[in-house]
């Protein structure tokens, strides 16, 4: 059973529940107290000891149900009749061949697997599949391409070779029995296939997900397919969580400055000014303030979408974010993003300003006219766009003024450096005023860029 528990823990990790060895030890201790008899209690026990959030509880619950729900061996189509026929000898057929007496006389001399199939001893078949599966190390399955191999291995372990020999022999001597055996074998194949598919779902998920995430992280955001958008959002949320964990806890110690004499004296007034408790000054540190200007025209729209999602999921780290979206003109979108789900918010933004041809000059002018005062010397301004202004006036002078007012001006461009300055790209003109200019086409680059911006406030 311990083996089974370890396999379950592995499956749980695959389902996205983060399990440390200590937690699995706790779970084992808990299980040793409650035992295996009551499945509902066992499920609750795992949920209590292993899962630490609501999402994890749900994932673990599903994983539990899948893990402890072994596929039933299929009965052959004519199961009713054959079952009746064999019932008399079924009890002993599996362990002592030839003991079946009159009705099972033909079964004598057959291999163990054939005996089992003919006897339709479901428990014995399930047990045999489970044994064969662990002998074939089914829990090592990682990719869907391995399904065939593992099915083959399991059937080999169960002695399919002997069964084939038996079938050949029977075909000559007893065709009726041979046909029944063939049917039963088809059923067995189906069951094994189900077992393997289930194992793939349990054990292969982690690997498959890692692989997929790795590919997604490095895929250009502007060109991912619609069906991958949901996965991408999931990935972005993961990134946001990682950044939150890294930056949400300000390190007080680092910030400790000189002794605050006045506060120390006041605090220790009760003891005649003898300084039992000390008070320290804090070195001042800016709170992150971000103003984000996002191009939502054509090709850049999707990158902006993910960027806005990321920056707005960082509440614990940066609570002061003002976002603006533009293509032809510029509007503020912070409220839309705060109040609606990411999908609906993005749809609304797109319907308001999206899909136009971009005009950086007039968008910057809009910003200067209405929102220039939001920029303080503590603000980081992030512009996300390809700087392709359709040969209209780039108004780089406004960008200069923005740069002068702000702490930092970061330009994220989804295009590669090679393309900057070609065609209608105004990147060289803009980049002279930016503190940092970087390419930002994939989730990985996005994470880097945001991480650097937040880190500059730590």
């Amino acid at each position, binding site marked *: 059973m311990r083996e089974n528990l370890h396999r379950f823990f592995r499956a749980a990790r695959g389902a996205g529940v983060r399990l440390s060895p200590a937690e699995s030890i706790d779970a084992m201790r808990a299980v040793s107290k409650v035992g295996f008899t009551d499945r509902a209690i066992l499920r609750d026990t795992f949920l*209590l*000891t292993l899962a630490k959030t609501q999402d994890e509880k749900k994932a673990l619950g599903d994983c539990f149900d899948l893990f402890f729900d072994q596929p039933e061996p299929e009965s052959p189509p004519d199961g009713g009749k054959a079952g009746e026929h064999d019932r008399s000898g079924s009890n002993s057929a599996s362990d002592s061949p030839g003991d079946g007496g009159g009705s099972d006389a033909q079964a004598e001399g057959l291999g163990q697997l054939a005996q089992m199939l003919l006897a339709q001893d479901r428990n014995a078949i399930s047990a045999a599949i489970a044994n064969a599966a662990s002998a074939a190390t089914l829990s090592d399955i990682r990719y869907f391409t391995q399904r065939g191999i593992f099915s083959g291995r399991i059937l080999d372990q169960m002695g399919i070779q002997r069964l084939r020999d038996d079938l050949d022999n029977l075909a000559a001597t007893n065709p009726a029995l041979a046909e029944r055996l063939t049917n039963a074998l088809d059923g067995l194949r189906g069951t094994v296939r189900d077992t393997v598919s289930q194992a793939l779902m349990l054990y292969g998920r982690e690997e498959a997900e890692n692989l997929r995430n790795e590919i997604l992280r490095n895929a250009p955001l502007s060109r991912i397919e619609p069906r991958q958008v949901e996965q991408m959002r999931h990935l972005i949320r993961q990134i946001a969580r990682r950044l939150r964990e890294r930056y949400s806890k300000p390190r007080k110690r680092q910030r400790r400055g000189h002794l605050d004499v006045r506060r120390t004296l006041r605090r220790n007034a009760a003891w005649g000014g003898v300084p039992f408790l000390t008070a320290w000054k804090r070195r001042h540190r800016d709170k992150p303030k971000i103003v984000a200007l996002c191009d939502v025209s054509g090709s850049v729209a999707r990158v902006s979408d993910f960027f806005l999602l990321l920056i707005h999921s960082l509440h614990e780290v940066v609570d002061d974010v003002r976002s603006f979206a533009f293509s032809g003109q510029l509007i503020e979108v912070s409220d839309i993003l705060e109040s609606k789900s990411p999908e609906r918010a993005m749809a609304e933004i797109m319907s308001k300003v999206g899909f136009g041809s971009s005009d950086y000059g007039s968008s910057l002018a809009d910003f200067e006219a209405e929102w220039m005062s939001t920029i303080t010397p503590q603000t980081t301004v992030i512009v996300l766009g390809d700087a392709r202004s359709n040969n209209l006036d780039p108004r780089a002078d406004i960008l200069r003024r923005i740069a002068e007012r702000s702490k930092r001006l970061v330009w994220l461009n989804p295009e590669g450096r090679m393309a900057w300055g070609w065609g209608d790209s105004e990147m060289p003109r803009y980049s002279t005023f930016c503190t940092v200019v970087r390419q930002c086409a994939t989730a990985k680059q996005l994470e880097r860029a945001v991480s650097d911006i937040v880190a500059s406030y730590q």
Partner: protein
Amino acid sequence: MADIGPSASIEAVESGLAAQGYIASRQIATAVYLAQQIEKPILVEGPAGVGKTELAKAIAAWRGMKMIRLQCYEGLDEAKALYEWKYAKQLLYTQILKDKLGEVLGGAPTLEAALNQLHDFGDVFFSKEFVEPRPLLQALEQPAGCVLLVDEIDKSDAEFESLLLEILSDFQVTIPELGTVVAVSPPTVILTSNSERDLGDALKRRCLHLHIGFPEQKLEERIVESRVPGISQTLRRQMVGFINEVRTLDLKKLPSVSETIDWARVLVLLQAPELGHGVVKDTLNVLLKYEADIEATMPQVSTFIAKASRQGVFG
């Protein structure tokens, strides 16, 4: 308790808590049972008013143990949670013992000798006498064990979480001047959180994680029955049905179990025979705590009452 089967002991927990007026779901009972068996704290999360704090009280009452409560807030630190030196007493004692000290040191010819003699006294002023135990230390010192409730841990700072780790995993605290204080008998620790901020993994790892959500309708009816015995069965069913309908709305603060109980008390006090349109409109402010929520619910009241009473007929 160990020799009867686990499911029987879990039922025993359930009925034990029920005797204290706390109707626990199976999962809560399992958590309490496991916490006792493998000596781990329980971290209870869930919306406000579903009975997280009540659970601790019920356990304490059921086991006949003392409950020690530590209410967390921003800025809670070691001195208020764990222990503090009684500075005033230390000062007072030094003053009183001044003459005595003079006597002891009087014979010493040089300053160095006096210092050596003083060393022989040891750290009299940093002994157990002068420690003021705060809730966490108190909990460890209870000879008969106790229920330690660390309430709303999410309100405290991240540093305080780290302070708790030693207590949670080993049931001990280290006081630099005294050494390590180990629990006389391990307390049952309940931590509650409203998920205002994410707790650290280190803390979560050391606890059983229990999420109490809104109860199912049957369970909630039993809770109301146990807390407000005077209420009739039809009214109980109707009001719980109504509240379940309200919970499907998108509100700022959904009514939780404590609101259900309050409302049941109000309805009994008003001697309402059944859920009527007028009664509900007059008492909706018991259930909902925001003006906007009340406004959002008002137009739906009639539909919800109709639904709830239909459930009463068939349910």
